[in-house]
């Protein structure tokens, strides 16, 4: 791992080797007023994997993503991204990081006043102001086709269904061709068929673009479908990280409680 003494201005993304540690949340603490979200939390993310962070509502899953991308700051601890301590970055120094780390928001967070094409072009205009208009148009069309929404540039966000909004949000996130995609509750509020199509999309981002993904969700089906590793966030720290199989046979009380509650919810009369 590179030294964290590098100054933020030196930040430049280096293509990692698959499986190498890419991101490390180290001794993270975070509180909102009197409500403490993390206590000395540690978690690592490896290049090329899809890491699912699972946990109940209000346990701080989304906060983790927002700390990584600089929308929130942890109180103490470090977030190392290829050895760079992101907690020392200013807002301006985060801009190049955000070209490599993109986020798909829970409600898609599309800009209501812009059409689909303009939404997807937004990060291109910010990160590559000199990119010719033709190239921007081509890139927008390519990314929309990648999320199975070709020729939708002129539609307004209000015209889209929940699943379509998520897809446009993804097209916008991958417009700058980032190496890391952060998914905030990607399947929340979607019907089972759309949920499955989003799961397929998450997997295809890994296979087609080679992206590293961090998915936060409380949807267990989605977690076990897309995750290479699953981390369980409970009691303000990661209580277990492991493969889906390891998590399924976990004896950690918090993990068991979460899995059993979901099983009861799915099969109230007992699992078949």
């Amino acid at each position, binding site marked *: 791992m590179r030294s964290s003494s590098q100054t933020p201005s030196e930040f430049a993304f280096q293509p990692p080797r698959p499986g190498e540690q890419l991101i490390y949340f180290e001794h993270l603490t975070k509180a909102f007023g009197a409500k403490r979200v993390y206590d000395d939390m540690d978690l690592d993310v490896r290049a090329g994997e899809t890491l699912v962070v699972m946990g109940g509502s209000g346990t701080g899953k989304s906060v983790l993503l927002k700390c990584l991308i*600089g929308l929130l700051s942890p109180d103490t601890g470090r977030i190392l991204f290829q050895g760079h301590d992101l907690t020392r970055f200013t807002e301006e120094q985060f801009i190049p990081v*955000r070209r490599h780390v993109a986020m798909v928001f829970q409600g898609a967070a*599309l800009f209501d006043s812009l059409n689909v094409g303009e939404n997807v072009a937004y*990060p291109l205009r910010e990160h590559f102001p000199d990119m010719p208009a033709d190239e921007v148009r081509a890139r927008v069309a390519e990314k929309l086709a990648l999320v199975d929404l070709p020729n939708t540039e002129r539609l307004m966000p209000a015209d889209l269904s929940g699943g379509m909004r998520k897809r446009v949000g993804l097209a916008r996130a991958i417009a700058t061709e980032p190496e890391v995609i952060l998914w905030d509750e990607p399947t929340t509020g979607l019907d089972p068929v759309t949920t499955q199509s989003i799961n397929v999309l998450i997997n295809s981002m890994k296979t087609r673009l080679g992206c590293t993904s961090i998915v936060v969700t409380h949807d267990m089906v989605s977690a076990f479908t897309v995750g290479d590793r699953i981390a369980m966030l409970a009691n303000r720290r990661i209580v277990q990280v492991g493969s889906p199989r390891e998590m399924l046979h976990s004896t950690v009380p918090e993990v068991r409680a979460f899995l059993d509650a979901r099983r009861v919810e799915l099969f109230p009369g007992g699992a078949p």
Partner: protein
Amino acid sequence: MTTRQPEVDAAASGPPSLMDRAKERLESLGALSRMTGQVFSRAVRPPYDWRGLVFHTESLGVRSLPIALLTAMFAGLVISLQFGYFLSRFGVQYTVGRVVILTLFRELAPVLTALTVGARIGSGIAAELGAMTVTEQVDAIRALGADPLRKLVVPRVLACLIVLPVLTVFADVVGLVAGALVVNFQYAITLNLFFQGALDAVLMPDFASGVFKGAVFGLIIGLVGCFRGLTVEGGTEGVGRATTQTVATTSVSVCLADFFITQLTLSL
């Protein structure tokens, strides 16, 4: 198994004390001051968002014109009637133009425009940015590599800074014309006499102080509306709260600022 600390500390329970509320207000004022500094530093440095500035100036200004003119017209009518009535007691009703123009230019046009239009513009900005905040669009702007202050706040604040003085000038004219017409009808003071007296009495500083007030009020309205919108908490309920707070804060701030600017301009 180790004993976990409770997730929410005991200090959080119970209603906030007077001290807590005062601290919260001071912190909020500090944050608004910081935002003001950041807005100014961004406003003077390129790149400039001319399209955004024109769009917001047009949308805020044009849509506010009817209410501003209506308010100014009735203000002109009422004060002309009142002054005409009182001055006629002393037999000097022909001086009504002088009194009306000074009252309108120095005080009524900028303050009434700011209170009526400001409530509309400020709450509209707070609601718009508040909705963007709760739907994470403001976070998305940052996550996509842009600066929400530069994209959202600077064009709106500058638009308010332009729109309020312009509306104040319109209000000056409409109020004066309405006043001239009503005293002509009610007290048989000719339009010529009214305007002659008015123009003899008014000096450039009288006009300029009103326009200056309009600019300061515009700045207050824009900054408060943006600040309340960007600091919304608590979902759609929070958006509603932010809009009403914006109206209250801008109204009080406009009255306070009016007092201090009047003191300042009279002492010059």
